[in-house]
């Protein structure tokens, strides 16, 4: 019916609509941005939610262990906690942790240095980029622990072998992520850097590194996790090094003694350390940098 009428025919489209101007928009809507309630704000905090999650997991553990009632297979959470505190008090667990962490940091830092050199070479030249691509494709999938037998022949039964394995664990993922990050730095930022006449060094430190920081942090995190895994595995195989046993050795030894709560305590220590580094170090780093800058939501 509408189609038969010409569109310009006003009367056919209903009565005329007068202009309408509102000089007094309604008031009384209260506050536009109303603050959230206390409970909502508490649950908005990731730490609160995650702590609750951890408590829930501990409760499930305790419940299951009690129902199973076999401390040799699966000790309760309370027994594990007791063994954990005992280990700390007798300094056995504590010194094992110190040994592991010291070795870990040595390997990690050395791995980062190697990764930095490799990335610098890859960023500066095309040969370097090809080399990095090829080496990473070859070595990144290779489990670090598979190199341990070789490392023991090359570096002997000292810390050297473990550090070699750690460097291998850290280096490739950090180098790969950093290089990928550099390559994906926006063309506009690069041109801005050149426009304001940055020197080559300043260009890297003031444009490339901050621009690639999301990838670099990812690389650091992956490298850290790989290193931690490789270390515990190496210690399990390797046992005592010159400076005393690490956490892996602590776990292995207590298994031999059938001190299962202590085995769990050792594992708990590994987990707690991982959580702490992830949440304290890396999370803080992310919040201070890429989140604050809106580069990651």
């Amino acid at each position: 019916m509408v189609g038969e009428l010409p569109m310009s025919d006003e009367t056919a489209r209903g009565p005329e609509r007068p202009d309408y101007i509102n000089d007094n928009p309604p008031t009384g809507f209260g506050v536009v941005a109303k603050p959230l309630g206390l409970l909502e704000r508490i649950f908005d905090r990731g730490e609160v939610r995650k702590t609750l999650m951890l408590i829930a997991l501990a409760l499930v553990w305790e419940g299951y262990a009690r129902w199973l009632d076999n401390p040799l297979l699966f000790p309760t959470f309370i027994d594990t906690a007791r063994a954990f505190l005992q280990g700390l008090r007798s300094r056995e667990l504590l010194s094992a942790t110190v040994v592991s962490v010291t070795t870990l940091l040595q390997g990690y830092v050395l791995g980062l240095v190697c990764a930095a050199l490799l990335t610098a070479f890859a960023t500066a030249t095309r040969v370097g980029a090809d080399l990095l691509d090829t080496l990473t494709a070859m070595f990144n999938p290779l489990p670090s622990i598979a190199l341990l037998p070789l490392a023991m022949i090359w570096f002997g039964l000292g810390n050297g072998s473990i550090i070699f394995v750690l460097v291998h664990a850290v280096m490739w993922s950090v180098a790969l992520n950093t290089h990928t990050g550099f390559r994906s730095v926006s063309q506009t930022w690069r041109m801005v850097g050149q426009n304001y006449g940055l020197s080559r060094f300043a260009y890297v430190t003031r444009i490339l590194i901050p621009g690639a920081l999301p990838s670099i942090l990812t690389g650091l995190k992956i490298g850290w996790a790989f290193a931690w895994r490789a270390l515990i595995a190496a210690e399990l195989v390797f046992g005592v090094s010159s400076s005393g046993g690490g956490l892996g050795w602590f776990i292995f030894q207590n298994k031999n003694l059938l001190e299962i709560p202590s085995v769990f305590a050792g594992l708990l220590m590994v987990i707690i350390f991982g959580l702490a580094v992830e949440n304290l170090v890396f999370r803080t780093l992310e919040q201070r940098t890429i989140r604050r800058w809106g580069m990651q939501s």
Partner: protein
Amino acid sequence: MATEVQKPLLDVDGVTLQYRARDHLVTATYRVSFSVRKSDRYVILGPSGCGKSTLLKAVGGFIKPVEGTITLGERQITRPGPDRVLVFQEFDQLLPWKTVEQNVLFALTSSGRLSGGEAVDRARHYIEKVKLTKFADSYPHMLSGGMKQRVAIARGMAMEPEILLMDEPFAALDALTRGQMQEELLQLWEDTRVTLLFVTHSIAEAVRIGNRILLLTPHPGRVRAELGSTGIDAIGADGRRLSARIESLLFEGEPDGRRAAHE
């Protein structure tokens, strides 16, 4: 008429630009010549594919011409430098890891233009000029698109470059903001008399911003015309508005153009 002829500030002479695409060597502009005088608002206008952005980047020193020369003052342009500051179309030209003030400061200090308190004063002065003093400590991701472009313009102007190169700086903005930004840019120009080289694909924008308008034809970019503008789309001697003249020059002026195809 002025008695002495003003020497051009920027001289582009027979410039041919080429760039390598995936598997072609593309000629972006072919033997383009024009010259910009001090305090000009010089607009390069053309449809997409006329190489206007490439031309601007060549003036910026990011691309080397395969033929012809570009001269600023007495020096031939060979590489990027802080005497020619580029304002981009993209909102991500601000460095996200720096606040508004730090972005402006970064430009001043890393180019060695100013340092210390002087740099801070200059940065604040130009941030105030673009009315963003309240947001000086905000990070770019907290700003709207128009505000980001204002920061970029403040950063460029704070350098007090010999020529400010603008690559469609308002193209990604909504129409209302764009109109406002054009107005603000003209006001800033009134205050500073900075030489502008402004690239756009919008005829209305060219007419409003420019005092000289260079028209380029596409594929590759060649000079079609250079016209004066008073900013109000005035009716010329031939009884047509400037925008209508530009349109006919760009689209109907081509021999055997679209009209032939329709007839």
